[in-house]
């Protein structure tokens, strides 16, 4: 084994660093206390470089694997990065950098009188924990190791919800925690059954050994149910809006953009890599129906919200619904007509573009709260004049939610739609159209208010630093850019994806 890292295979050596970096960050920030001001930003930048390097190595050399400690599977834990992992890693890093810049205006480890600030300090290690949990999930090829990474994610994410110390967020955080815990236990239960049946938890080994039988079905059902609870998928979704809507804006952005995607990512891994036969089954239709219910109910509820942050949170429920349409759409294909590819690429692309759009929306809502003192949609008149960058970003991100060109959301929904129509399954297409219309209604409802001219010019209660507005705009621009140059991410996504990604974009 010696020489693996320093030899030609530098890329594999980088994988573990993607988890080491944020963990080391948390361990550093804690003793540094109020002197930790600059550390997180340096780490976020380093993380972006690292994620880019990993993606680059995947791009030129294909799938990367690294056996931790030199112990190969099934005895040890193997890290594995294919195109999908690399894309998720990059998305995470690209969202975290602007969110970090945005959050610096709100969370300072040192208070004005030079003491250590509770929220100002703890926000940063908690972010590092979320980041480590995300990277750990995206890179691990071992089902139990993923369980530990998911728990790290949960235990770092839940305190973020209550970080501002508002009493109203406590119940939301508890509901979130209970759902997440039950979800991980169900997931672990499925993993235990797989271990009992096949004697390994390594995804690659399992993919060869899993048969299409009753015990696989029970394990798959348990794991999927657990992960649905963690993803806030209908009908296990009610914990999400109060938790995401009540958290500080920077935390909401991370929770809605990235954290729920980790468990979604796992559902994709399980269904496409481990239990591909399920895609042709009624189970996939059930997932799709849940998705459809989420799209419609989430959008309608978003329409009825009086506050922007809650509107954005309910819109997350709806947008998560689209992700689950990929399961029924991927099934039923033949070699001549590979529905799988279009549905898979569409679903993943939606997850990525929604991450950028939603992060931008939550940060924008946070700026409105800071700048004009509230986020009541009815009283937004004049906001476009006072905070033009934020409202512009809202419009751009809104394109992705509605699925209008040019945006990443358009490409994603277009892929899903064409798959649905090409395979003659009109029902799913109708749901997507309806969801798009509803999204347009709630986006324009906000824009309409914000662009209206007020009777008196809107006065900012507190100045908003330029860098925070730029962070919001940057995220919105990325979500649009994805729609303009989709080819690069698509080629990256297809690396090592096996049957699921062939013929994706073309």
């Amino acid at each position, binding site marked *: 084994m010696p020489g693996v890292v320093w030899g030609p295979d530098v890329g594999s050596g980088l994988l573990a660093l993607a988890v080491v970096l944020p963990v080391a960050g948390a361990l550093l920030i804690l003793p540094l206390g109020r002197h930790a001001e600059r550390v997180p930003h340096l780490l976020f930048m380093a993380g972006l470089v690292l994620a880019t390097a990993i993606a680059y190595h995947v791009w030129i050399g294909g799938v990367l694997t690294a056996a931790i400690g030199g112990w190969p599977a099934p005895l040890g834990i193997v890290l594995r990065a294919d195109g999908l992992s690399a894309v998720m890693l990059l998305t995470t890093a690209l969202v975290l950098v602007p969110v970090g810049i945005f959050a610096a205006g709100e969370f300072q480890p040192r208070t004005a009188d030079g003491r250590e600030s509770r929220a100002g300090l703890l926000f940063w290690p908690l972010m590092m924990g979320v980041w480590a949990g995300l990277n750990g999930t995206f890179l691990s090829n071992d089902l139990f190791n993923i369980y530990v990474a998911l728990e790290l994610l*949960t235990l770092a994410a839940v305190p973020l919800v209550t970080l501002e110390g508002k009493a109203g967020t406590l119940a939301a955080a508890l509901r979130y925690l209970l759902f997440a815990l039950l979800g991980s236990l169900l997931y672990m239960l499925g993993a235990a059954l797989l*271990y009992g049946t096949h004697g390994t938890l390594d995804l690659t080994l399992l993919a060869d050994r899993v048969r299409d039988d009753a015990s696989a079905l029970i394990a798959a059902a348990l794991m999927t149910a657990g992960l649905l609870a963690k993803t806030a998928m209908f009908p296990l979704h*009610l914990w999400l809006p109060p938790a995401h*809507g009540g958290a500080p804006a920077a935390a909401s952005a991370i929770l809605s953009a990235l954290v729920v995607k980790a468990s979604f990512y796992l559902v994709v891994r399980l269904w496409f890599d481990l239990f591909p036969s399920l895609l042709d089954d009624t189970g996939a239709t059930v997932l799709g129906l849940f998705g459809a219910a989420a799209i419609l109910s989430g959008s309608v509820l978003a329409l009825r919200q009086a506050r922007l942050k809650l509107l954005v949170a309910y819109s997350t429920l709806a947008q998560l619904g689209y992700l689950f349409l990929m399961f029924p759409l991927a099934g039923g294909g033949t070699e001549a007509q590979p529905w799988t590819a279009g549905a898979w690429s569409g679903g993943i692309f939606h997850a990525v573009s929604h991450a950028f759009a939603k992060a931008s929306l939550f940060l924008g809502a946070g700026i409105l709260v800071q700048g004009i003192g509230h986020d009541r949609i009815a009283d937004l008149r004049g906001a476009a004049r006072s905070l033009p960058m934020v409202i512009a970003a809202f419009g751009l991100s809104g394109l992705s939610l509605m699925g209008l060109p040019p945006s990443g959301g358009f490409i994603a929904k277009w892929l899903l739609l064409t798959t649905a129509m090409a395979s003659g399954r009109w029902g799913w297409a109708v749901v997507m159209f309806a969801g798009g219309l509803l999204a347009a209604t709630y986006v324009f409802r906000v824009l309409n208010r914000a662009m209206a001219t007020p009777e008196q010019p809107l006065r900012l209660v507190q100045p908003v630093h330029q860098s925070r507005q730029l962070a919001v705009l940057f995220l919105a621009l990325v979500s649009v850019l994805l729609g303009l140059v989709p080819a690069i991410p698509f080629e990256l996504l297809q690396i090592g994806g096996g049957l699921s990604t062939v013929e994706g974009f073309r």
Partner: protein
Amino acid sequence: MSVDSLFTQPGLYGVTGALAIGIGVYGLIVRPHLVRKIIAVNMVGSGVFLLFGAVADRAAPGPGGDPVPHAMIITGIVVALSATALAATLTLRLSRETGRTALPPEPEDPAVQDKES
């Protein structure tokens, strides 16, 4: 399918684990008090671990067993304690701030949320 395997030693503990999970799920749904819910989640966790332990015992009956699941279960127990500590502190804080020890009914009314901010 072999029903006989349920009546071996590991089978017995596997079934006990399965039933403990069922009892825990029931308690989690039905009991409103948050300390009860935390107990119920821990009960589900213990059941999951016991079932996994039965799996390990099948691979190598008697003292020792399969050490890989054992190590995972130890990790799982520590993780469960971590989550319990956080949940307990949240419950405590909720009780001090609001006097409640249960979650409010589904929080769908935006007015409730508006009051909070």
